[in-house]
């Protein structure tokens, strides 16, 4: 659905040239939620704005929904939706007004635009507020209006730039449900986020971006597995005895009050650990499974923690 090759963009500022995006290759498949994870300033938004025809790439190529981005940006615009990070409504206009206009700007007739607006307001649970001014909406409502505006023309691909930034946890969960619903309706969704949990919970596949380049790509679970595997921490009174009993595992670390095992898949390792300790007669205190987070992935790939940003 989206394919890019060597996409580049630099900006000239007073202090010299900044390479914001330096050669991004990525493939997004139809019907998936694809996430761009990275700290602020990593080049996520710049990449997104290039793909959304708002900014001309300095180099590289891209095709979106079967159309070449550089050759025919006009046709790309018909096939994509874009929801900017900072919102897209004036305080004094109403959701209904904006949605009807937005649909009509895509060439939809007046009656069809009204019908679509009614449907979309209903599906985003905005019908009750549709005639009120946008400034009276809550943060979550206003963001839902932004997304409704981005998909009123039923695009094949929708780009969401940091869709949950600034939302409270409940609105955030609600927004995730909306995004999943759009995917289930057949849309391809490309989101950027700097929240680890969001990338983990929402995205089918992610690319981790840092300093203008992609440093890792894959499903969240594959990425975590690839990087560090799982950690099983076994709390015991006699760690040395436990370590001896668990010598069948490849990586065993001895600590004061525990033994740590680094394994591929913690869930299947736990029964084996218990059985091994049992048959060796070592009394087991506690056992816990620590799954690596995407932050561990980021740390391994870039040498920095995402949380520090």
């Amino acid at each position, binding site marked *: 659905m989206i394919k890019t090759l060597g996409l580049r963009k630099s900006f000239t500022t007073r202090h010299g040239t900044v390479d914001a995006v330096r050669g991004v290759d990525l493939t997004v498949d139809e019907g998936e939620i694809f996430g761009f994870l990275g700290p602020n300033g990593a080049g996520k938004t710049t990449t997104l704005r290039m793909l959304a025809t708002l900014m001309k790439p300095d180099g590289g190529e891209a095709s979106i929904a079967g159309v070449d981005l550089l050759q025919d940006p006009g046709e790309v615009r018909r096939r994509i939706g874009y929801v900017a990070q900072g919102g*897209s409504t004036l305080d004094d206009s109403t959701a209904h007004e904006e949605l009807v206009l937005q649909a009509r700007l895509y060439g939809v007739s007046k009656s069809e635009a009204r019908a679509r607006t009614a449907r979309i307001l209903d599906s985003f649970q905005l019908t009750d507020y549709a005639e009120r001014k946008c400034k009276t909406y809550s943060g979550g409502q206003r963001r839902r209006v932004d997304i409704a505006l981005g998909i009123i023309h039923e695009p094949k691909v929708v780009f969401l730039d940091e869709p949950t930034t600034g939302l409270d946890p409940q609105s955030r969960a609600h927004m995730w449900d909306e995004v999943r619903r759009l995917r289930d309706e057949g849309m391809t969704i490309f989101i950027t986020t700097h929240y680890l949990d969001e990338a983990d919970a929402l995205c089918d596949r992610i690319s981790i971006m840092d300093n203008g380049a992609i440093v890792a790509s894959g499903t969240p679970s594959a990425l975590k597995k690839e990087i560090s595997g799982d950690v099983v921490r076994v709390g015991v009174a006699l760690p040395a005895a436990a370590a001896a009993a668990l010598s069948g595992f490849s990586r065993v670390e001895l600590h004061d009050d525990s033994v740590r095992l680094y394994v591929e898949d913690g869930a299947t390792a736990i029964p084996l650990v218990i059985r091994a300790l049992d048959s060796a007669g070592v009394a087991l205190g506690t056992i816990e499974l620590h799954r690596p987070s995407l932050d561990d992935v980021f740390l391994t790939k870039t040498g920095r923690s995402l949380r520090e940003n």
Partner: protein
Amino acid sequence: MLRDTWLIFQHQFKALLRNPVWILVGVFQPVMYLLLFAPLLKPALGVQTNAEAYEIFVPGLLVLLAIFGGLFQGFGLISELRAGVIERSRVTPVSRLALLLGRSLRDTASLLAQAVIITLLALAFDLRVFIGNLLLAYLMLALISLMTSAVSYGVALAVKSEDALAPLMNTVAQPVLLLSGILLPLTYAPGWLQGIADWNPFSWAVNGVRALFRGDLGAPAVWQGLAIMAVLAALAVAWAARLFARSIR
């Protein structure tokens, strides 16, 4: 393109009507000029009747309104930029020219509404003007307004901040105003000042509108003013539409 322009125009006009105070605010200052400044004119200009004084003063007032009304429209665009409305429009296949023209024509329509109110008030002060001439004068005002609002939108897109737009527009507007003979005809000016004013396109426009209000349809100032304003309006619209098309940030 026409359909897009009409859609943007309608939407913008609706936004304007939500806040009907604009028409009162827009008319208040010119009415103050009519009531408090115009009475000085009869003796100052050495004319015989009120009607004559108004023939000279009302055209200047209307042109003034068109220039200033247009030049300050950029502020609305900056708040739209900030709210993300412009960026959202840019991702749609809407014509870039329509994004500008829909807005500028809205400004022109609201200016003409104000011009009609002021003309009607001036009629109460004995001003008399042929309807055909009046319509031509309104065409001139429409071209001025189209130009100045396009310039204002273009500058707003370029500077993207109210803090930069306000001083810039004021700096442009003041010499334009003084060199256009809007408040007093430049026939009273010394030669060197008239020479400079000849380079000010708005002084041609003011002369044209004055000729029309005088009933002098055949005066060269009429077609000269209209031609100059039409060319400048076209240039301003083309320039600002290009800025709408260019991706920013």
